């Protein structure tokens, strides 16, 4: 009989359900702190009021973005780009220093999974009870529990979707619309879409999102180096494993194991892992750095009267060279980290300076394209411009217009314009100049100054054309 040398395997495997065991400890507490902090901000922010309106409101219809006292317009989009770059560099810096702490403690995917797991535990019980429940046939109890769990998940998910849309439509309006079933089509779509995404990602997809969908998870590994703090198993100290109470002591003797490590092979670190990996196999791409295994192992070490830290935050170099905390900390100030910090600091400084010095007035000068320049009765030349004025402050303001750059150049009639708070207006302006014989194009400049505050002024150049 010939032994087959090949086999046909499926390239697509079904997901294996992971039942993370509940764990208490330092890092679990930190993660819950992350959950509370991010979710109080997310669910709470839209309820805050500011000057008679919602404090944080992204009004897409009016194209105005309110952030407390700040009103941003589509022209201020650069600040969004700046904010995203700051976030990216923040992520780079944190990742270079301490690995995927964002993933493990603050990422919405982790935070909502944690929330949904908590609900799951409250309804279906602990890990072993959940495994048992899933394996048993469909009974009335199982159906009731599953229904209760999904109902609770959907409630949280819909509330999340509702809150999300509350950043774009004032929450008060949204509540009335929901109560009277008059929700707009797009609002309803986004409430349901965001709710469905929350339910699907935190309830069903969980670690699949981190493993297969998330791009940050992938490129964060390129920011790791040998001095990055990551969750690691101290192989030197742990191996060879001593399979605790489950294997009789004489078997160890039979295997002629002389030296035994601190790992008792209780598999607690595997049972608590939300991505279902065994950290003892070393750093793996699935690891989100949540340190649940650290908490688990420390608890076990307490019970077997061994020191903490068989699984701990350590750097690759520290493990290889047996470094202590001091050496690890000294390597923190390596060039990569300093460079990230410098760029991040500069960006934040530039952003805040630019925001602080922002002029709440925008001016765009559009010369009438249809005409070159007209001659008046007394032989002067007149050009017409449209001044697009935008008052981005929240109070009505009066602006004075002036023009310079050519001898005798002046605005003919209208030179004082009043604009409502946060409004825009196109103002036709006639400019006249003593320009006989000066055929050609001349540079002139408009200055728009707020009457109540001379510091609020914008200067814009334009061309004044004299027909030859």
């Amino acid at each position: 009989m010939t032994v087959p040398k090949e086999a046909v395997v499926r390239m697509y495997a079904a997901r294996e359900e992971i039942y993370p065991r509940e764990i208490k400890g330092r890092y679990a507490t930190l993660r819950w702190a992350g959950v509370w902090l991010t979710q109080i901000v997310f669910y709470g922010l839209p309820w805050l009021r500011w000057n008679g309106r919602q404090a944080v409101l992204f009004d897409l219809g009016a194209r105005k973005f309110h952030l407390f006292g700040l009103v941003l317009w589509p022209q201020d989009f650069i600040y969004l780009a700046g904010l995203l770059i700051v976030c990216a560099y923040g992520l780079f810096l944190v990742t270079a220093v301490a690995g995927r702490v964002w993933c493990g403690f603050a990422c919405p995917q982790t935070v909502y999974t944690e929330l949904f797991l908590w609900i799951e535990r409250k309804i279906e019980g602990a890990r072993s009870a959940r495994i048992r429940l899933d394996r048993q046939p469909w009974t009335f109890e199982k159906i009731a529990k599953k229904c209760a769990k999904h109902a609770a998940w959907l409630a949280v998910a819909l509330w999340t979707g509702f809150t999300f849309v509350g950043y774009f439509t004032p929450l008060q309006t949204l509540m009335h619309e929901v109560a009277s079933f008059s929700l707009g089509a797009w609002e309803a779509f986004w409430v349901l879409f965001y709710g469905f995404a929350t339910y699907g990602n935190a309830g069903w997809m969980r670690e699949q999102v981190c493993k297969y969908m998330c791009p940050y998870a992938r490129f964060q590994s390129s920011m790791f180096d040998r001095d990055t703090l990551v969750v690691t198993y101290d192989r030197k100290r742990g191996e060879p494993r001593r399979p605790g109470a489950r294997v009789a002591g004489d078997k160890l003797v039979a295997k002629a194991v002389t030296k035994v490590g601190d790992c008792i092979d209780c598999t607690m670190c595997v049972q608590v892992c939300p991505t279902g990996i065994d950290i003892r196999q070393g750093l793996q791409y699935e690891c989100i750095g949540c340190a649940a295994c650290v908490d688990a192992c420390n608890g076990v070490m307490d019970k077997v009267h061994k020191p903490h830290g068989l699984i701990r935050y350590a750097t690759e170099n520290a493990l290889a060279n047996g470094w202590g905390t001091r050496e690890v900390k000294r390597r923190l100030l390596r060039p990569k980290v300093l460079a990230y910090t410098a760029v991040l600091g500069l960006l934040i400084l530039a952003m805040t300076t630019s925001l602080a010095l922002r002029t709440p007035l925008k001016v765009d000068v559009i010369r009438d394209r249809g005409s070159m320049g007209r001659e008046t009765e007394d032989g002067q030349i007149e050009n017409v411009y449209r001044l697009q004025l935008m008052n981005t402050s929240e109070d009505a303001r009066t602006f004075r217009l002036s023009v310079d750059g050519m001898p005798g150049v002046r605005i003919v009639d209208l030179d004082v314009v009043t604009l409502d708070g946060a409004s825009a207006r196109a103002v036709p302006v006639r400019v006249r100049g003593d320009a006989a014989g000066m055929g050609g194009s001349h540079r002139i400049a408009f200055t728009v100054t707020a009457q109540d505050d001379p510091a609020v002024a914008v200067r814009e150049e334009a061309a004044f054309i004299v027909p030859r």
Partner: protein
Amino acid sequence: MSDFTSGFWNWYVALITVASIAGCAILLWSQSRYKVRLDQDGQPAKTTGHVWDEDLTELNTPMPRWWMGLFYLTIVFGVIYLVLFPGLGSYAGKLGWASTSAYKAELKQADTDFGPLFARYASQDLKAVAADPQAHAIGERMFLNYCAQCHGSDARGNKGYPNLTDADWLHGGAPETIKLTIMAGRVGQMPPMGAALGSDKDIEGVAHYVRNLSGLTADPVKVAFGKAKFGTCAACHGPEGKGNPMLGAPNLADKIWLYGGSADTIMETIRKGRTNTMPAFGEFLGEAKVHVLAAYVWSLSNPVPPKPVDGKVAAK
């Protein structure tokens, strides 16, 4: 409507589309299984056996199954889409959607949204509409959109394009007349008069006479010479050169000039004549909108007196 006269290309495109979709489905199905080597212990190998740079091995870790489900979903989506919407050659789709009908639907929606507003103004007298601040704002926006290209953002015109803010009108400045001008457009024509007037000296004389009518500097001798020749022009511009709105003949006795008032320009106008067109906007905008626009244009040369505020007339 198809851009091609022959049905061949429709079938060509449709066939490629269908074959591509079927190809994707076959590829997905055929590639979902993979032949691997067996290890020494008879288990399928974890690597493909490819090794680069001494120790870089390619794993054959399976993808998640839901991922393949998504691929199949895109195929289902594509098929449903191609049934409902036009995409397969010249097939129009079950929903009968077309960009032209979508555009017409949007126009219709805008008409139902804004129609009542314009209808309310359309039933009012033009002077009453001119006094309405909201109608004034609407008129100003329409003017900037449709009229400012020629007449300027400030409506003061340009060479060849009349100033709309003075009280001087080529075809009459009554509100109803302005409305008619916008609705039906105007053609203004001044025929070349060089041959009819005679010599260059005659033409120069008439030009100086016309300047004199407006009170501009002119050579008295040439003025007297031109006055005798002006009878040819009087047919349209009137014996006193005051113009005739019925014919669109401009008033020559004011200082307002459509093409310029220098003697040279006037002589050029006489010699070569002028033809000027104001396009008709009636069909494009519809009468209700033109009504609001005409009221705005009329108000430019007839400023609305300030409204009484708190019982008193606001001081100017």
